């Protein structure tokens, strides 16, 4: 893909998702929650997926993990991890990948750990699920990992139960667990959402350190544009189950193209100038997966809608910056100016 940075093309992508679709059989017919998502992730790359709740970002990474277990769910398309197809892989083989080469961090550290086991034991369990280590060696490894994620007094902390740790410490424990088998790919589903801001920054540092020390690639799901700006190499914006814009982080912030992205960025309080009385919000609500509009799914909420929006726009690349929108370059510039004027004008 043209959006990849030169370095990652040479190394070959670690993850290639093609036309991923996740649908659910329901009483009201087939519902497409993820609709034709394609992604490429290079070695050591941090890709951020942003979007509102229900935009399909979590389902996309769950599909990569092979963790969509709803018997009514249908996963289609192709997910290649280091060239190996994961869709349709028998569960036994998928299990070897899951938690080993691909690991996941979940959103809520308060509930993500089994309450009845000490964290050291939970980490050691994962180590032993993938490596032929003795109980004692796994326990030692768990303590090393706990130390690596910056929990003080690692040997003592290993004996602690989840309820004895703070949210930030629990998230560190979850990360230690995810790192236990040196994953090449880490999927982080809103790892900082449930934490307070100072802890958020520490966790992001940890993710960055992880790439530096272990050379892992990361997909980080968030709806926090601040987190994106902080950490991501590239950003994919998802809306109603599809990617509507994708670019390198700097390019996306400098020159957002899709009206939805404009809306997302417009709802961040500006750092300079007068304080707006009211932050602009995107009008309307995301479409229900039962009633995704024909044509551009964002159309009904879009200020710049035209007749041409009745046809669903494809993701089109333009200098490594992909957008699924019919607006021309000039129209986009105008929209951007307009959007910024709203933010400023609200002051």
């Amino acid at each position, binding site marked *: 893909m043209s959006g990849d940075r030169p370095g990652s093309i040479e190394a070959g992508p670690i993850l290639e998702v093609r036309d991923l679709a996740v649908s659910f059989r329901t009483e009201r017919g087939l519902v497409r929650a993820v609709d034709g998502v394609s992604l490429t992730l290079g070695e050591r790359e941090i890709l951020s997926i942003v979007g509102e709740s229900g935009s399909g970002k979590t389902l996309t990474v769950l599909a990569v993990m092979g963790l969509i277990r709803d018997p009514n769910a249908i996963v289609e398309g192709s997910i290649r991890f280091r060239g190996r197809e994961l869709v349709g892989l028998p569960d036994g083989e998928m*299990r070897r990948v*899951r*938690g080993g080469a691909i690991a996941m961090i979940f959103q809520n550290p308060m*509930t*993500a750990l089994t*309450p009845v086991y000490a964290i050291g034991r939970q980490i050691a369990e994962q180590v032993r*699920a993938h490596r032929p280590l003795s109980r004692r060696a796994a326990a030692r490894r768990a303590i090393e990992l706990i130390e690596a994620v910056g929990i003080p007094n690692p040997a003592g902390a290993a004996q602690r139960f989840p*309820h004895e740790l703070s949210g930030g410490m629990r998230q560190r424990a979850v990360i230690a667990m995810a790192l236990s088998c040196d994953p090449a790919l880490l999927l982080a589903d809103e790892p900082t959402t449930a934490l307070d801001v100072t802890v958020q920054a520490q966790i992001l540092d940890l993710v960055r350190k992880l790439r530096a020390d272990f050379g892992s690639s990361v997909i980080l799901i968030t709806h926090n544009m601040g987190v994106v700006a902080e950490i991501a190499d590239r950003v994919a914006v998802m809306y109603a189950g599809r990617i509507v814009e994708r670019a390198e982080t700097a390019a996306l912030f400098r020159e957002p193209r899709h009206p939805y992205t404009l809306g997302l960025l417009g709802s961040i309080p500006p750092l300079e100038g007068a304080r707006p009385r009211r932050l602009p919000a995107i009008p309307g609500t995301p479409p229900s997966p039962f009633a995704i509009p024909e044509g551009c799914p964002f159309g009904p909420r879009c200020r710049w809608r035209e007749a041409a929006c009745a046809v669903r726009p494809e993701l089109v690349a333009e200098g490594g910056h992909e957008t699924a929108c019919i607006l021309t370059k000039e129209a986009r510039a105008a929209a951007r100016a307009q959007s910024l004027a709203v933010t400023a004008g609200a002051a």
Partner: protein
Amino acid sequence: MLFVLVGISATVFLIFFATPGADPAARIAGRNATPETVAAVRKEFGLDKPLPVQYAMMMDHLLVTQDLTSFVNRGEKIVPEIVEAAPVTLSLVLGAAVIWVVFGVVVGLVAAAFKDTLIDRGLMVGSLIGVSMPVFWLGEVVNLLTQSRLHGTFFFAWVPALGYVPLRQSPLGWFAALVLPWITLAVLYIGIYGRVLRANLIEALNEDYIRTARAKGLSDWQVLTRHALRCSLISFVTMFGLDFGALVGGGALLTEVVFGLQGVGALTYRALEDLDLPMIMATVIYASFFVVVSNAAVDILYAAIDPRVRER
């Protein structure tokens, strides 16, 4: 705990004296006794004293001097009767408890693992049948088959005659005499425990930590037995504490009566039939003692199962 025991015994005592037609003096004196005889008996047994005094006297005889005698069979001492009956009940309930815990856990786990498949449905229908079968009926059917109809066949020729064989006398005989009562008693509880555990497991399987456990690369069975089961055991253990205590205290009376086991339950049964107050008092106190003890044991078990309980 002492408070609970005193409360229960006092309540039973008062209920007994409030029961019409239960006048112990009249019963002791016999059917055609003259009023004078009844009055004499009443005086002799101290039944003319105020109720609190009577209660204190009875407790004194029961617990301190341990020479409380039956109102119905004169001269029959209560305490040795219970001491003799206790091992019978204990053998019956312990064996049944082992069976129902093992099978209850297996049924719950397998049903949860195969949720919504034929295996799950079959197990749930089976346990519903188990729960619905009255134990006295099931016991009689078992007896009918193994003692008479099929006793001649190869399968049940080993079944001994009804009754209890002390463990010290013959371990094998003890086992043979008890294995059918065990199963009969356990069937009901396997059904209940299996269903409750299945429901708790399925609830636990929706928790976030289960997804974490799956993401670690554990197999479904490992996730189920290591993570979901441990967190689902609280209500299982609570139920077990109550049921086990009640059964050891004589709650298995139907099973005991049907299988001719002279346990605490059978004693209670007889005492109730005869309205034999001292015996009722003794068995009730004995029963409540076990209920209280096993609930205390459950509280300790909680702490072992769930570290969150420990500090409180």
